[in-house]
């Protein structure tokens, strides 16, 4: 029973951190791509969207090769800072962040693009600084669209399995998240534990999706009518 709650809290911790990282990364990259024109923008957009369509095992393999002890980057991290990401919950956070990133970045870009440029212009004419235009005009106008994406990303990060298993392994209490605990329980024939785990996962995901649909841009328009 305890193992179930340990897996749940670990999952929430991993998904929470992944979401925080994605809010920062997804919003900045989404804003950047919405507001700049440069050669290769579409290609960059495509590359950043890849994690959404690529099998998590492919991402897991990329990450394992990239941050593993045998790789240039991985060994640099280890020798310079003593950081080892494989088999750690931080490694699970990175896997979940990469997998869920497009779910924040895509809606964020769309939301920023739909913000009326005249409103920003008006603020600029009134002498408001660029940074406070972003936080007081642009972000509040785009916020709903972004938030729906953030919640979906949280749900996706919570359910992450393939990449996490490859990068972080399955160490009970350390890297064994809900979805991996389900897999292990089923493998070992522990149907009671598996039932408990899938029930919890389903409830959490339903709550997240309900919240996301309440925040989706379509609902706002509905209410205004």
């Amino acid at each position, binding site marked *: 029973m305890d193992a179930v709650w340990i897996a749940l809290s670990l999952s929430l911790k991993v998904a929470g951190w992944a979401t925080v990282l994605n809010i920062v990364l997804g919003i900045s990259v989404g804003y950047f791509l919405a507001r700049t024109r440069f050669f290769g923008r579409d290609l960059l957009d495509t590359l950043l969207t890849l994690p959404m369509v690529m099998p998590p095992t492919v991402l897991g393999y990329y990450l*394992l090769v990239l941050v*593993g*002890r*045998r790789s240039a980057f991985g060994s640099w991290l280890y020798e310079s800072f003593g950081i080892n990401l*494989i*088999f750690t919950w931080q490694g699970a956070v990175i896997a979940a962040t990469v997998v869920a990133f497009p779910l924040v970045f895509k809606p964020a870009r769309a939301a920023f693009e739909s913000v009326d440029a005249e409103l920003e212009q008006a603020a600029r004419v009134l002498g408001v600084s660029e940074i406070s235009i972003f936080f007081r005009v642009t972000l509040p106008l785009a916020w709903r669209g972004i938030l729906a994406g953030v919640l979906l990303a949280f749900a996706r990060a919570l359910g992450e399995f393939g990449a996490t*298993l490859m990068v972080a*392994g*399955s*160490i*009970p209490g350390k890297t*064994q998240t809900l979805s991996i605990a389900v*897999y*292990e329980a*089923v*493998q*070992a*024939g*522990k149907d009671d534990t598996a039932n408990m785990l899938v029930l919890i996962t389903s409830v959490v995901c339903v709550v997240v999706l309900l919240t996301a649909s309440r925040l989706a841009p379509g609902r706002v328009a509905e209410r205004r009518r």
Partner: protein
Amino acid sequence: MLKMALKNLVTVAVLTTSISVFSAEVTVSAAASLTNAFKDIALNFEAEYPEHKVLLNFAGSGELLQQIAKGAPVDVFASADQETMDKAQTQGLLNEASRKDFVRNTLVVITPVDSTLELKAVEDLQQTALQRLAISNPESVPVGRYSKQALLDSNLWAVLADKMINTQNVRQSLDYVARDEVDAGFVYATDAAIMADKVKVQFTVPLNIVVSYPIAVTAEGSAKAVSQQFIDFVLNQQSQAVLKGYGFSQP
């Protein structure tokens, strides 16, 4: 146009059904440690009986058992231990008469090939230089169960708990050692032999039971003659030579 496409589809469907009257597919669920050997054996089997097709499914034995128990259409089951096969038998999933032991294996501890560690016995796993030890999940993977037993027998199971990295099957342990992500790991001698260029066998783990692999036709597979045919093929000299080539020994 659509009519013609439909007609073609029906023709194809009829053709495929009529072929399947003469040929058969046999689905074989085999322990992960058998991966390479069974791929070879399946090719030989298909070469000898071109009318049959072998579908192979590899995973930890416990996972395979759960798949069969939940109704996966499996005809032949080859497990890496007796315990998993016993469970299948008590759940009525097997054609008991067909059950046979077909190979033996040994448990070893390996390290990456360029490791500076020197390990002679399980007690040496306590060295502080050894930080991470890959061990397959004892709940569902036979090699994990054997490893756990060896550590329990030498009172090291609890001592080494902090170093353990659980894996889903023996090949994942092998891969982590080969990639140098763990300092050592428990695998079968046959797995170590496959990656001889990347991993080093440190010592053979003494066990008080024999690691023997049973194979059996499942209850579902009993309806097909090809299931027993495949087992007979695994037991023949040619296949035993293949298994021996991968380091398995005769039962």
